């Protein structure tokens, strides 16, 4: 009969298409993590986590992409995610950086964000590979109590999960949490849990399904300086006559537990080990070598409490704000310095010039909420473009400076949530014809010539009324 045959055909077609879609929609079911070890370092206010994953390909097709998941609560605080794979034999292993990109997964549970790691060589069926992931979280330590007096110690809460969030099945996993001091008020126990001194061990946990979580909370003492720069504007002015002038405007805040009550200067200075333990007085900035004309001032005027120590590889500027910073206190200041041009400006092979400079804040162990770098190119520069190793927002502006007629092009790069890991080099390319350097002295010469022409005109014009 026709009708049953047609019904059987459509049923077969539906079954095949269903199987086809099932096989296509889950590339992640081929892989399985045989061993995962996570070490979370809570010693400073930037949370650093090192994840070592051993991934096995249990499917039949080779895989070259691995998915990494993070809970949605950490999404806004994730500053960097890096993946490293070791290459080579036992004695000569080198670390190779793998590309990591954020991805969207529409058909997965939506309380997580995802990153894809692209492997250098595809992982064949039955093989396994080990690689490390390093990620940093900012603003993840919540001060609890939120307000403390001058003589109290700072206690913070760190929330995470004892089980590593992953779209793959994990056979065995362990998490180690390292606190800065042995003083831990409380921590969630998810058996088996062990605590020894400054390290808390969660695990090993066997055979957990994908997307399994077990929320934990660690309440511990952290008196490391919570130095956060709310806004940093760095301006780098290039002058082809041999100098790079850098001006940095900081808005610094202590992002730990807020200070409540009075501030007694006598107590603070006489008993430094028991009062103001979470405050900080000194900040260290690492500047390039051969720096000159360094100044440190704010709106009132020059701040003289600073020291500059220079050697052949780096210069260190130790600054002390006008007052020590306790929880919630702010300080704004400007640091400026000059650098020799030949260390930073180069000529590339296709006749373009480029500036090679470091992104990021020179202050050590600080988080910057919003960083803006402005590179001011000399007058007469064309075709500016910036090459930065991580995503930033770019746009162009114009600035009028010394002896300018048409204005200088400014390349503005902005980034949010910057940690010291971002102190890598970036390049700004532009085209400049050296003949334009003559524009400045010729402008000065023509101003003087105008004066001489005025003299000649005055001496030749007859202004007498009577003949």
């Amino acid at each position: 009969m026709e009708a049953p045959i047609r019904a059987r055909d459509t049923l077969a077609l539906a079954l095949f298409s269903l199987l086809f879609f099932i096989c296509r929609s889950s590339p992640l079911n081929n892989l399985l993590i045989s061993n995962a070890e996570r070490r979370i370092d809570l010693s400073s206010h930037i949370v650093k986590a090192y994840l070592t994953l051993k991934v096995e390909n249990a499917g039949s097709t080779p895989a070259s992409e691995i998915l990494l998941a993070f809970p949605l609560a950490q999404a806004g605080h994730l500053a960097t995610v890096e993946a490293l794979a070791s290459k080579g034999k036992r004695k000569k292993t080198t670390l190779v950086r793998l590309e990591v990109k954020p991805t969207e997964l529409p058909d997965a549970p939506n309380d997580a964000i995802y990153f894809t790691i692209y492997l250098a060589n595809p992982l064949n069926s039955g093989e396994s590979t080990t690689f490390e992931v390093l990620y940093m979280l900012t603003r993840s330590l919540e001060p609890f109590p939120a307000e403390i007096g001058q003589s109290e110690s700072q206690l913070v809460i760190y929330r995470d999960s004892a089980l590593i969030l992953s779209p793959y099945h994990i056979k065995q996993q362990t998490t180690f949490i390292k606190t800065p001091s042995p003083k831990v008020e409380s921590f969630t126990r998810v058996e088996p849990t062990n605590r020894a001194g400054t390290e808390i061990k969660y695990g090993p946990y066997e055979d957990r399904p994908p997307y399994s979580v077990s929320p934990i909370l660690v309440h511990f003492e952290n008196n490391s300086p919570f130095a956060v720069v709310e806004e940093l504007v760095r301006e780098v002015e290039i002058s082809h006559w041999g100098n790079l002038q850098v001006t940095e405007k900081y808005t610094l805040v202590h992002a730990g537990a807020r200070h409540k009550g009075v501030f007694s200067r006598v107590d603070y200075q006489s008993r430094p080990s028991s009062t103001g333990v979470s405050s900080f007085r000194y900040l260290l900035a690492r500047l390039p070598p051969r720096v000159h004309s360094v100044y440190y001032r704010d709106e009132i005027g020059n701040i003289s409490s600073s020291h500059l120590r220079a050697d052949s590889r780096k210069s260190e500027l130790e600054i002390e704000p006008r007052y020590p910073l306790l929880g919630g206190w702010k300080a704004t200041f400007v640091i400026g310095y000059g650098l020799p041009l030949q260390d930073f400006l180069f000529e590339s092979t296709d006749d373009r010039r480029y500036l090679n400079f470091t992104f990021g804040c020179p202050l050590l162990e600080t988080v910057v909420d919003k960083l803006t770098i402005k590179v001011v190119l000399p007058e007469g520069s064309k075709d500016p473009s910036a090459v930065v190793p991580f995503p930033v927002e770019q746009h162009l502006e114009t600035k009028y400076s010394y002896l300018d007629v048409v204005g200088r092009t400014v390349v503005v790069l902005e980034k949010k949530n910057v940690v010291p890991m971002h102190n890598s080099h970036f390049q700004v390319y532009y085209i400049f014809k050296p003949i334009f350097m003559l524009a400045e002295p010729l402008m000065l010469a023509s101003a003087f010539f105008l004066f001489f022409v005025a003299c000649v005109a005055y001496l030749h014009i007859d202004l007498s009324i009577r003949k």
Partner: protein
Amino acid sequence: MAPPGKPITSPVPDAWYPTLAVVLLAIGLVVTASFFIYEATSSKRNRSIAKELVTGAVASVFLGFGSLFLLLSAGVYV
């Protein structure tokens, strides 16, 4: 890392800036002096405008470059 390239320096060595500033300004002021001496000592009929303008142009070129190197040696990198 950054691609390799040749470092770019100023067309005039840094160490010469103060010397060049003083020398060029001195020559410029001498030529300016000769311009004003010519104006003062010649009478209206003998003046030749070509000589005045040429002296003025030479003086302004030397004074222009001299003031540029003066600004550079003082730390105002224009």
